[in-house]
């Protein structure tokens, strides 16, 4: 049995930012990592993926991008090198190749069993990520004999047969895969439910720049109207490309991607799609326009209209009058289905009763419902930016401060 004050599970950007703030406060800790630093970035991404946030925004505590292309988007090898450089810079106490197999409550702390040795700690920080397991709808089991992939299994179009591809889900993953697979010459059918449409650039700046400048990314979890809703929002339809391209449904349509509504049923070889596509697109268009209006209003309030390009609005999403409601997948030449239907965290190793009935961690701004337990890196955990690289620092600072106070209270008790 080894002992330390705090165990951090996961050496991605969140775990490392936490490590930095724990070190700054003199809190003795170890970061346990199942693989290498930035393991998910190394192993669970398709080949062409780039960050959806610009390089300048990949800030970590005491660390920032200093390369030649601040407006660009890092490739995965660049992200891995960047996060590794951060781990080296802060000299994070990472134990790599150490998979946590069970966490349980013990005395006034926790026992952390791993595939190597068992640790005892007072406090625990879960920094193992929000996207450990692809989520598939229940109907996925009933599909006919068609090759089926999750985004974790997808690497590049070359691994797919030459036949058509149905991609289920039109958020960040789905639209990016649709673009690249269509560009490889394959027919692509995209199943579209609710989604968040955004232009890559607006009035000459990255949309991420606007979301930060206007304060949106710093919006706090205890200030929003419906926290549950914002935490469940689909990921943004964005792609990081050297051309800084927009990837909305209109762009995909122009590239030859076909659309149907949300996949709602499978009946033999037939897939059925919701008749709600038009409204899903209307919701996304209206929501995008509200965001652009608020950016314009912010610029006007600052009196900076002359400093940026002119305001503009984009074409409403163009949808065929009667999209297919039903399709015989085999007859239509669909040879591959890709489930871009989201991800969830994996807490199968967590033997402490802190999950709700939906399997989500019960926490308040990252302070988990068990003494001395914390989580970091979940969507809108403390701020809208919580699940982004740029959000790790502020959340880690808050949680490290909370932990210090917890130790102080415990010592006084």
């Amino acid at each position, binding site marked *: 049995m080894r002992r330390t004050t705090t165990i951090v599970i996961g050496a991605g950007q969140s775990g490392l930012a936490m490590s930095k703030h724990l070190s700054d406060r003199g809190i003795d800790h170890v970061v346990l990592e199942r693989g290498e630093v930035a393991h998910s970035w190394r192993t669970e991404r398709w080949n062409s993926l780039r960050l959806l946030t610009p390089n300048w925004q990949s800030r970590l505590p005491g660390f920032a991008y200093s390369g030649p292309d601040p407006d660009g988007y890092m490739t995965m090898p660049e992200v891995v090198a960047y996060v590794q450089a951060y781990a080296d810079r802060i000299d994070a106490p990472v134990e790599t190749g150490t998979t946590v197999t069970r966490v349980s409550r013990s005395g006034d702390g926790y026992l952390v069993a791993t595939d190597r040795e068992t640790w005892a700690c007072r406090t625990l920080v879960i920094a193992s990520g929000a996207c450990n397991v692809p989520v598939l709808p229940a109907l996925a089991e009933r599909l006919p004999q068609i090759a089926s992939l999750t985004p974790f299994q997808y690497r590049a179009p070359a691994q797919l047969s030459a036949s058509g591809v149905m991609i289920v889900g039109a958020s960040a993953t789905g639209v990016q895969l649709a673009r690249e697979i269509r560009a490889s010459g394959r027919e692509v059918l995209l199943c579209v439910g*609710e989604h968040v449409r955004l232009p890559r650039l607006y009035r000459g700046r990255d949309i991420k720049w606007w*979301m930060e400048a*206007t*304060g*949106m990314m710093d*919006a706090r979890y205890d*200030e*929003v*109207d*419906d926290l*549950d809703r914002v935490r469940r929002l689909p990921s943004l339809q964005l792609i990081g490309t050297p051309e800084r391209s927009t990837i909305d449904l209109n762009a995909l349509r122009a590239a030859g991607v076909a659309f149907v*509504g949300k996949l*709602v*049923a499978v009946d033999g070889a037939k897939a*059925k799609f*919701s*008749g*709600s596509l038009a*409204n899903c697109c*209307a*919701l996304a268009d*209206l*929501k995008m*326009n*509200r*965001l652009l209006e*608020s*950016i314009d*209003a*912010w610029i006007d309030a600052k009196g900076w209209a002359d400093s940026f390009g002119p305001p503009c609005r984009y074409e409403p999403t163009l949808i065929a009058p*009667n999209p297919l409601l039903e399709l015989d997948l085999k007859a239509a030449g669909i040879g591959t289905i890709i489930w871009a239907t989201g991800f969830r965290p994996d807490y199968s190793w967590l033997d402490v009763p802190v999950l709700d*009935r939906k399997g989500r961690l019960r926490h308040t701004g990252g302070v988990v419902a068990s003494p001395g337990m914390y989580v970091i890196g979940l969507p809108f955990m403390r701020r809208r930016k919580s699940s982004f690289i740029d959000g790790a620092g502020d959340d880690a600072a808050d949680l490290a401060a909370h932990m210090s106070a917890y130790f102080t209270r415990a010592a006084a008790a």
Partner: protein
Amino acid sequence: MTTMTMKSPTKTANNGVNVAALLGARDSLSKAPAAAAFKWRVACEWVNGTHSRSAIGSFFGLGTDQPRKNTFTVEADHPEVFAAEDQAPTPVEIVLSGLASCLTAGVAAVAQNRGIQLHSVKSTLEADMDLQGILGIDEDVRNGFSAIRVHFDIKADATPDEIAAVVAQSQKRSAVYDIITNPTHVLVTVN
């Protein structure tokens, strides 16, 4: 908080919807999901020809049968071109009415929640149907609607985009819209 987050209802509007009660119900049911399991019931009896009469009374919800002050009656028949007596709307028209009413209720509730005062909410609905389906002429033609078009004409103290957003949100949260746009299991038994 910035202008970029959802605005809270600072404007006061009265559309006759008790939003506080609805939000309270949402809050309590999220803590006690079993109480959210409702069952809706209709009892229908054949009258004559294609004419039938449905009685709609109690329903099940919040863990118990919920009685009603009234038992409502909905009649249905078919028009004369179907060689029927046209004593009441056709069932498919009642479905359209159900969709319209569900969306309209949603418009009122969403507008109330967003502080938007409504002055009038009118809608017209039109649905396409190829009778070759129900008459069994062409197996490739479905029985039901091939498309439904709903047009809202809304007068309210709000911008056109705000009104459009209310209508979009009402679709997103409408039971009848969901029943019509997505498949539902239907299990029919006989005594």
